[in-house]
């Protein structure tokens, strides 16, 4: 299958500063990709380049068969973007902002605007000036703006910054639903890694303008996790650092942390513990995205 979005050795400089260094990646249609990395890693620059609002100094890009350098207009028609600042007019009301952007995108439909306002729980605030909105409300309004024209590709730059837990769930539930129901390809940039775990199909780790690693979580786990850290909440009474030949650490009320060489050792261990005491909770500590992120960054800096 041909990739929907392709980048091949893309470089970008701002003056003497190299923001992207020969970045290459491919994304298939209908996938949700997490773009992870510290501030200044080049995440936003990738989004801007893909939309043709800035031009790469080297390499090539393709998005839905279009080249951003020459076909930016066609690309921007099929892309929706939520930028970090949301980019709304504070002196206008929420509804006025959306009507304005709908006209700019050539998709002015009052019904669509109302449906989205209700979906993102802003219908009752639509007549308020955006300057009076909370950070979370501005972010949700920015999401609606990005979705107005039913984009095939959605770029979300820090979509949950400033949102409360309900808002975060609302946004990610919608993103997942959009991907499942309409097959929208989604690029998600975020610092809050655990939020992305269940939403993204694959991840790209960026640092200093280079992609350190990319792949699905399973692929990354197989590559980077060579020791399993298992936390078990149990009534077991262990006094030493070893139990049945396994390294163990007492975490107090949280239970014990066992070091295993692979996942295959989990079932036998739990069987043995269950023979001697109760088990209330079992969790693999080092397989979450955050652990992978630090592991990948750590190894690249070694």
């Amino acid at each position, binding site marked *: 299958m041909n990739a929907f979005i392709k980048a091949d050795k893309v470089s970008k400089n701002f003056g003497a500063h190299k923001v992207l260094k020969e970045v290459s990646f491919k994304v298939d249609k209908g996938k949700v990709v997490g773009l992870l990395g510290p501030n200044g890693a080049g995440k936003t620059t990738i989004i801007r380049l893909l939309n043709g*609002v*800035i031009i790469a100094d080297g390499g090539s890009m393709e998005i839905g068969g279009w080249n951003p350098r020459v076909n930016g207009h066609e690309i921007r028609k099929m892309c929706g973007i939520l930028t970090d*600042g949301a980019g709304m007019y504070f002196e*206008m009301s929420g509804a006025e902002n959306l009507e304005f952007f709908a*006209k*700019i995108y050539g998709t002015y439909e009052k019904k669509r605007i109302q449906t989205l306002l209700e979906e993102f729980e802003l219908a009752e605030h639509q007549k308020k000036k955006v300057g009076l909105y909370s950070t979370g409300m501005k972010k949700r309004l920015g999401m609606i*703006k990005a979705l107005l024209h039913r984009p095939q590709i959605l770029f979300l730059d820090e979509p949950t910054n400033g949102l409360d837990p309900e808002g975060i769930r609302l946004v990610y539930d919608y993103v997942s639903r959009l991907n499942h129901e309409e097959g929208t390809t989604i690029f998600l940039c975020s610092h809050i890694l655990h939020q992305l775990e269940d939403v993204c199909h694959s991840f790209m780790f960026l640092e200093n303008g280079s992609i350190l690693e990319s792949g699905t979580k399973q692929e990354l786990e197989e590559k980077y996790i060579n020791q399993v850290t298992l936390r078990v909440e149990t009534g077991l009474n262990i006094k030493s650092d070893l139990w049945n030949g396994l390294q163990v650490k007492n975490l107090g009320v949280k239970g014990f942390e066992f070091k295993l060489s692979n996942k295959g050792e989990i079932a036998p261990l739990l069987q043995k513990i269950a023979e001697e005491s109760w088990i209330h909770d079992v969790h693999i500590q080092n397989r979450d995205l955050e652990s992978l992120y630090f592991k990948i960054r750590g190894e690249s800096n070694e």
Partner: protein
Amino acid sequence: MNKQAIWAIAQKDIRGITSNSQVWIGFIVTPLLFCILLPVGLILAAKYMVVADQDLSAILYKILKNLPNGELKHSIQMLPSINHQIIFVGINFFLGSLFLMVPCLNSMMIATNSFVGEKERRTLESLLFAPITVKDLFIGKVLAAFIPVMALTAGSFIIFAIVADALTYSMFEKLLLPNTNWFLLIFWLSPIISLLTILFSVMVSAKVQSFQAAQQFGGVIILPIILLIISQASGFLILQPLAVFLIGIGLLIVCILFLWQITKWNNRNILFEKQL
């Protein structure tokens, strides 16, 4: 050309302009100064003073001398007093160039804010990510400044004409305004000067980072009008209908050059990188 997008940008900006107190101050102060206070001062002074000033008479003589022989020159010379002549010349020539400050200053005030305002509010990024051409964006911005300024210019002229006619009717026993010269000023020269100021200011606005910087650069556009006022006041250049028409043609050519320059300069990525 995406008419819906252009009109949406223009409407959005006009709404922003009318809610900006800084712009309103300009909208009130410039007509008040150039269409009421100065004309009233000049007319009343000319109406009631005893003209003994040699310099004033010399300027008036120079103006009359520069006018070609014809009906206008003859009708001025036939006026019953030097006070009548000063008022007639003042209204028809001197106040005309002063009046041009209204479209010029207000166009500059609005247009310098056009792109800089978007940069300062961090909304330019949203516009550049949208499927509109930079040309449409520029047209929208130009219209947003042009429409309110033209409405203001027309309104200011109506006020000026009422004031001037009210003060001079008892002397001349006819309405001095409107006349051909003023029609050309309002419907020919003012729109062109306004467009020129807007194009220049929008160009500056797209290139600088702050409103203050845009205004400093944009202020340059007022210099030719100040020169025109000085020329008129000293009798060096008299704006008769043909001169007004020809100046308009010249400025229109400059407008076209500016437009050509704008389309060359402002591609999307340059505009985008300027805001970063």
